[in-house]
């Protein structure tokens, strides 16, 4: 039995702390997908909370033969879609510019991993379905079969979306470069 399955069993037996272990194992990776998909941390936190709560409620339906990560991601992808649908305006990617200025890292270090706003902006410009396919394929590094299982979309359609996402990024770069 995998660690995930063992933890699920413990939760179902009444040990809520075992769920904290599952959260610890998957939160960061899910957070990366949620932020990249939704474009800002506030919405991402909403989606993450909804995902893990739903997963908790549905643990009694989890089948050990499913990979827990795939099962969880199915919920995550759909929660991100729900959060996105509820939004009515385009969000700014980053917040607290003043804090960023005040807490600017040592300049000799150059930009750090969290200074990713320009990458996020580029991703935000992709149509959400293309962005989703791009993230699942090239950031989460899933196979098309895995992606198909969790999105319910056919493999060839997913391949088309991922390819189109790459095409759009390239086209956008050509425009940026020549401006």
């Amino acid at each position, binding site marked *: 039995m995998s660690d995930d399955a063992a933890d699920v069993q413990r939760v179902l037996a009444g040990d809520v702390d075992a*769920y904290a272990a599952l959260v610890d194992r998957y939160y960061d990776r899910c957070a990366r997908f949620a932020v990249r998909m939704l474009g800002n941390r506030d919405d991402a936190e909403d989606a993450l909370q909804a995902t893990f709560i739903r997963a908790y409620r549905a643990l009694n339906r989890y089948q050990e033969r499913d990979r827990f990560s795939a099962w969880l991601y199915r919920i995550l992808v759909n929660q991100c879609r729900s959060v996105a*649908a509820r939004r009515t305006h385009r969000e700014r990617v980053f917040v607290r510019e003043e804090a960023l200025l005040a807490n600017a890292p040592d300049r000799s270090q150059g930009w750090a991993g969290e200074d990713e706003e320009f990458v996020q902006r580029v991703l935000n410009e992709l149509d*959400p379905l293309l962005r989703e396919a791009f993230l699942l394929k090239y950031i989460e590094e899933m196979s098309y079969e895995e992606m198909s299982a969790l999105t319910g979309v056919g493999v060839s359609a997913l391949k088309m979306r991922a390819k189109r996402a790459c095409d759009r990024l390239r086209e956008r770069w050509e425009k940026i470069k020549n401006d």
Partner: protein
Amino acid sequence: MTDSEHSSYVEWIAREARRPVVMDAGARDRLMAAVRAEPVPHRSFVSRVGNAFQRFAEPRSLTLSPARSTLLAAGLVGIGVFAGAVMTNRDGRPTAGQPPVAAVSKLPVSDTFVKFSFVAPSAKHVTLVGDFNDWDVSSTPMTRSGSVWTVVVPMTAGRHQYSYVVDGKSWSSDPNAPSAPDDGFGHTNSVKIVGRGSTS
């Protein structure tokens, strides 16, 4: 990525997007607080059966007589496999958005000739470098007269940053001009305001 998708730019985007994302420090605590407020989920009959089947179907070192093997196989076929897929609402709809249209500010166009002077008695050559010559280190050499180096340049009205480069390597600000904040490269530029209500 496949060859058709290969592009160093797209690969770079993917690489950057794979970096970890730091969430608010309290996010996980808030999540677990919400989880603890939920009723504890209980194992359902379906999942017990499904899991039991799963464990039963896993390879084991068990030796059965042919008769018992046949009986076991028949029993397995007789048990219905219940696949409980998690159904979630797919109410997401793609929201196409357009980036806002860039606004273009136009600077007033008027050239004023401005004289720059810099005292550097032991320099061999001095150049003036700034935003008005796109920070090109060699395009505006200064002329020496005694220990003072001078040049007159046309400048558009507005705010300009500049510095002097001595002997091709040493950057000096103008001691008599207002300073810009740290340039981010370990130096400080000087500021000149031209034709915008300035006096000097």
